[in-house]
């Protein structure tokens, strides 16, 4: 066992795959000489060389386009968006090429796009977004969002080995804030599998990313009042582990859908529709969403604090639902 931070776990996973498979290479802005804006690829250039650690021009569509080309030719590119917010520059490449190659031409695109997402670091509107829903909405893509160091390492490895384009949204707030002991022996976390981070019987909190930790914190506080939360960490948004979600809601009969992403068009709406459609007669209370409001992410620290869903929000809504 060794103790690593969330960012170190991503680095370790990436490195292990690059050692295992010569076709794996990374590309992105400042990933080589600089070692990555967040130091994810620190030391990679000297270890793997220029051919496998490529500093690109400042053009996300070029990064993704080149990566798609390399993937079609049999390589395993791991493209980095310096901040997930910039992924919108590569929107066309991702949605009209990467997502549709297999469907249209029978040619798979084994590509991974990494995107540091989320707020809480005073990054402002262009460096704090959670852009996953544009891509959840596009068939042909897989989307993952680890919340722990363990899941981060296991999922980057699974993403790299996957035959299809995987968008890997790592949460920048968690980079150095969480430290875990990880097994030294190799392991994978399967894509498409949710994880019960805390088992409970009163209310299911279904969430992903940094919000998992808010939910767990809230659970500790609420346990003292006899309210027992079950925290379901989705880990993968597409393909969704629908069975685990429904199983949890059928057990507790009440659900809170929590994400840092904005409200309208956020994943909570999709989850609420699925639960209402497939578990209607198991519900003993309304489906409650806790999300950011429909605004850009504020830069001003007190405003950003207000914007982001907090542990106290989870506690407040859980108390309401418990009494409902």
């Amino acid at each position: 066992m060794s103790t690593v931070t969330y960012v170190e776990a991503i680095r370790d996973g990436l490195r292990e795959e690059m050692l295992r498979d010569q076709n794996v290479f990374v590309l992105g802005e400042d990933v080589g000489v600089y070692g990555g804006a967040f130091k994810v690829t620190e030391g990679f250039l000297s270890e793997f060389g220029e051919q496998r650690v490529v500093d690109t021009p400042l053009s996300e569509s070029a990064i993704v386009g080149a990566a798609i080309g390399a993937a079609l030719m049999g390589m395993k590119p791991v493209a980095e968006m310096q901040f997930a917010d910039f992924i919108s520059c590569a929107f066309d490449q991702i949605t009209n090429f990467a997502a549709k190659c297999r469907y249209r031409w029978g040619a798979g695109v084994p590509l991974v796009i990494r995107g540091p997402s989320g707020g809480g670091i005073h990054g402002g509107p262009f460096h704090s977004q959670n852009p996953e829903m544009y891509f959840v909405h596009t068939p042909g893509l897989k989307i993952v969002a680890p919340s722990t160091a363990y899941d981060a390492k296991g999922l980057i490895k699974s993403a790299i080995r996957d035959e299809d384009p995987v968008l890997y949204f790592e949460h920048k707030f968690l980079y150095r804030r969480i430290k875990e002991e990880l097994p030294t022996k190799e392991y994978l976390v399967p894509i498409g599998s949710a994880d019960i981070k805390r088992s409970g019987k009163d209310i299911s909190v279904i969430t992903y990313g940094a919000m998992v930790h808010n939910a767990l914190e809230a659970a500790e506080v609420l346990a003292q009042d006899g309210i027992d939360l079950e925290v379901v960490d989705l880990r993968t948004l597409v393909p969704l582990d629908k069975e685990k979600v429904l199983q949890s809601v059928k057990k507790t009969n009440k659900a809170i859908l929590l994400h840092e992403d904005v409200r309208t068009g956020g994943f909570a709406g999709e989850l609420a529709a699925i639960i209402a459609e497939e578990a209607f007669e198991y519900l003993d209370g309304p489906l409650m969403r806790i999300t950011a409001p429909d605004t850009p992410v504020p830069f001003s620290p007190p405003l950003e604090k207000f914007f982001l869903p907090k542990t106290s929000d989870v506690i407040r809504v859980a108390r309401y639902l418990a009494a409902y």
Partner: protein
Amino acid sequence: MSCDVIMPQMGESIFEGTITKWLKVPGEKVKRDEPLFEISTDKVDSEIPAPASGILREIRFQEGDTVEINTVVAVIDDGEPQQIKLEEKKPQSTKENITINLKSSGDQGTKNPRSSPLVKRLAKEEGIDLNEVEGSGLGGRITKADIMNYLSERENIAQITRPLVQQAQQKMEIPTRVLSEDKIVPMSAMRLNIAEHMVGSKGAAAHVTTVFEVDMTSVVKIKIKEANEFYHREGIKLSFTPFFVKAVANTLIEYPVMNASIKGNDIIYKKDINIGLAVALTEGLIVPVIFHANQQSLRELARSTADIANRAREKKLNPQEVQGGTFTITNPGIFGSLFGTPIINQPQVAILCVGAINKRPVVINDAIAIRSMAYLSLTFDHRLIDGSIADGFMSSLKKNLELWGNEIN
């Protein structure tokens, strides 16, 4: 002035009753002594008359509810004005409230109390009327916890008074899948009582059954001969029952151990011969008792057996009339059964089962004759009675029936 209607005590050892049917609805006029509701207890089902005349103002318990004796189950208003009690408001949640509009789509006490899809499904599956469930959720909503409490209380009531059935069921837990087309109906109080008694009796006594064949031709002859005159004289149809009761009563005098009871390590030889007759009802069965059967003539027995059977079917028995039996006769022969293996009616030690009386070819003096024959089966408690005694009793009973005289008296 208002008059409380209470759950009456139907016998010394009865402490609760189950309301099986309300005969009036709130708002209806009732007359004093008019039947108001029907109840079921361990011993007897009965109609309960209204204690006063007036308007039935409220019913506090529903059909199927079991309440302790002397509980007020309804109130009759005889016209005088009454003070209206203000309903207590439900306590507000002391925790931080979220201002969410709770649209009330139905109040407690109306046809549609607020609940949830889950609660509605559970209510449907378990056959619960949501109007009977207390809601502890916001705005008086019936929550999952509320309906689960209601269910476990309902089970507790069943469990407390029917421990033997529950025990036996636990020994044989084979879960049965309920499909959506299947119908779930809760057992009535009478059904549960019967179940409890049967399981208990089987567990307590060592049941053995012996079967004898009896030539009923003499009895049949007399019955046919006397039937018309009997009907004209008494106004009742003469059945085979009084013949069996008289024969059994006489035989019990010879074999007092068949008329006994076991209490701990003692044998209680009962002085009185009180014969219970099993009467089939649409919803179950009941066993009214003919007291001092040995002291009654056949004619008297004919009257008392007819009367008691009628009143049993009309639910007009007194609690005393279903207690105190020392021997029981059951007659599934009227349904066509040839012979059976009945379960002893505790605390007795034997029960006689009378089969159908059919004409059959039998051998008499090496010739074939057509006789009216019946199988009589006796289940006896082998803790007290051995085979030779039981067979002795049956031999004697057979003789008594076969050698019936020419008269009925």
